[in-house]
């Protein structure tokens, strides 16, 4: 069970991450809905679950992370900044500036970004390769990826899913941001994904289904990950809410992407702080 101090620390960080995500969205348009739905899992991953050294981004034994849903670049930049790869000020100064690597989708030039992503359905295959390489080298690092739920409509995802199970890659951990929405609307109306956990099970994966906004549950799921030497890859299906933390954006595909003005930014940040205060009091 996750200890209270850890959970409280992570909740504070997740709140800060959301505010940073909104600051970035004020600087220029981001995929704000998905940034907000992945924020809790990303915070716990980088502030608790993963092994890395921001001073040495190419450290051989680091855990690898690939943002397969590359349009979540905003949240990734914030997460990496808060992890110490660079400062939030730098991100805010450079986001969407001409020639800057901090674009709408992450570039491999950015410290902490292993490879450029943005075309959906690529990440899991790359992770299979990274996991195989780690095993060939006898390294104990894990390989993580985060996919969108809509993204897993891509056939390539299931080719990779088959391969990861076939090669018994216990060092591979995939997360899915299961916010039930893609760009056009509800995944279940556009192209049904359910029964979802069962699909991954049938493909031979160790399946975890959690509330992707419950920090304690996310901590627990990382605590009980099988060792990298295990013979089965793990998928963490995080049930999330697109736009989580900004009431008018929640569960609304219209907020898949967009930008916000200064006034709304201030209002959102105040609300997030107030909500965090209330939670602390409970």
């Amino acid at each position, binding site marked *: 069970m996750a200890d209270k101090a850890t959970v409280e620390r992570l909740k504070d960080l997740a709140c800060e991450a959301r505010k940073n995500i909104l600051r970035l969205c004020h600087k220029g348009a981001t995929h704000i809905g998905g940034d907000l739905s992945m924020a809790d899992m990303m915070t716990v991953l980088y502030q608790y679950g993963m092994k890395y050294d921001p001073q040495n981004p190419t450290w051989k034994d680091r855990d690898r992370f690939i943002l397969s849903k590359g349009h979540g670049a905003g949240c990734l930049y914030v997460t990496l900044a808060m992890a110490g790869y660079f400062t939030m000020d730098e991100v805010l100064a450079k986001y*969407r500036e*001409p020639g800057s*690597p901090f674009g709408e989708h992450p*570039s491999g030039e950015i410290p902490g970004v292993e490879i450029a992503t943005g075309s959906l359905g690529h990440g899991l295959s790359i992770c299979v390769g990274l996991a195989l390489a780690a095993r060939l080298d006898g390294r104990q690092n894990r390989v993580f990826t985060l996919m969108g739920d809509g*993204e897993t*409509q891509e056939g390539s995802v299931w080719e990779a899913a088959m391969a990861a199970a076939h090669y018994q890659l216990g060092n591979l951990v995939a997360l899915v941001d299961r916010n039930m929405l893609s760009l*056009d609307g509800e995944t279940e109306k*556009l*192209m049904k994904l359910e029964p979802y956990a069962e699909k991954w099970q049938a493909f031979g994966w160790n399946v975890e289904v959690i509330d992707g906004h419950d920090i304690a549950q996310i901590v627990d799921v990382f605590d009980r990950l099988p060792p990298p030497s295990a013979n089965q890859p793990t998928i963490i299906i995080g049930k999330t809410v697109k736009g989580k933390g900004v009431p008018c954006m929640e569960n609304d595909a219209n907020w898949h992407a967009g930008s916000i003005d200064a006034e709304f930014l201030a209002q959102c940040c105040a609300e997030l702080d107030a909500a965090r205060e209330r939670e602390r009091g409970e």
Partner: protein
Amino acid sequence: MVAQETFQFFSLVEKMSAREVYGKKMAEIGSKDERIVVLTADLMRSNRTGDFQKAHPERFFNVGIAEQNMMGIAAGLALDGKIPFVSTMATFATMRACEQVRTDICYANLPVRIVATHGGLTTGAGPTHYGQEDLAIMRSLPNMTVIAPGDPNQIGKVVEASIDWEGPMYIRIGRGGEPIVYKEEYKYEIGKAITVKDGNHLALIATGSIVFHALMAAEKLAKEGIQARVIDMHTIKPLDKETVIKAAQETGAIITAEDHTVFGGLGSAVAEVLADEGIACKFKRLGIPDLFAGYGEPEYLYHLYGYDAEGIYAAAKNLLK
């Protein structure tokens, strides 16, 4: 073939989104022709095909984020008599689903119309989203017709002309917000270039969103007494060879300009005609050099890589030196 008409006027301010024009046109012709079906891969809102979906829900298929599947489904629909209009971003249409396009659609010579949005660098969203090789890839496929409308409104004419056109078509449009080139009504024919401005000192052959830039460059050149012919080469395949040959013979100097890699697109197609015909003339290709273009808005990138109005102007001055 002789260019049909000459246009002296074009708007400098009016901008339009080809995606909007496409969406409206599809809703309109969808009611006239029962064979028309529309497909998208979780980009209905981006492709602006929502009006068609509302009007003809039974002939609309949003297959989720699955471009390869979408192209295969389109092939099947076309094989059984439908005319599928398939939309996604240029990069996913031509690269993710390339083999389905080649083997299932082109080899069977099926009348699938791929309307690819965000061609070239128009997204500004980085290399993962750029369609900077799409024209080259599509041009290499047997049976494929390749079109990049010369202004945002032209897509409407292309869609109309496409109904009776045989075989598969790749139609590339931008993100939107591109300037309008044609203010007046004009005749559009697939495979026939349009001479937008006449001139005999050199010819600027452009396609898609760069036609406007070529016109702007020609305006600037005209102020210095240099009369540039501006050709809207909206059909890249089959290429209007006669217009190219005539331009080379009458002006002796050709610049091609496109929002695409300089390898394999419009510039290459024009160069092939000149080489095959044994025509020697001054020649310069403008477009994206051999690199993955950086991030930034199209205006910034076009300028950086030298194929905006200023870049074309400078290249013209250099070529005529």
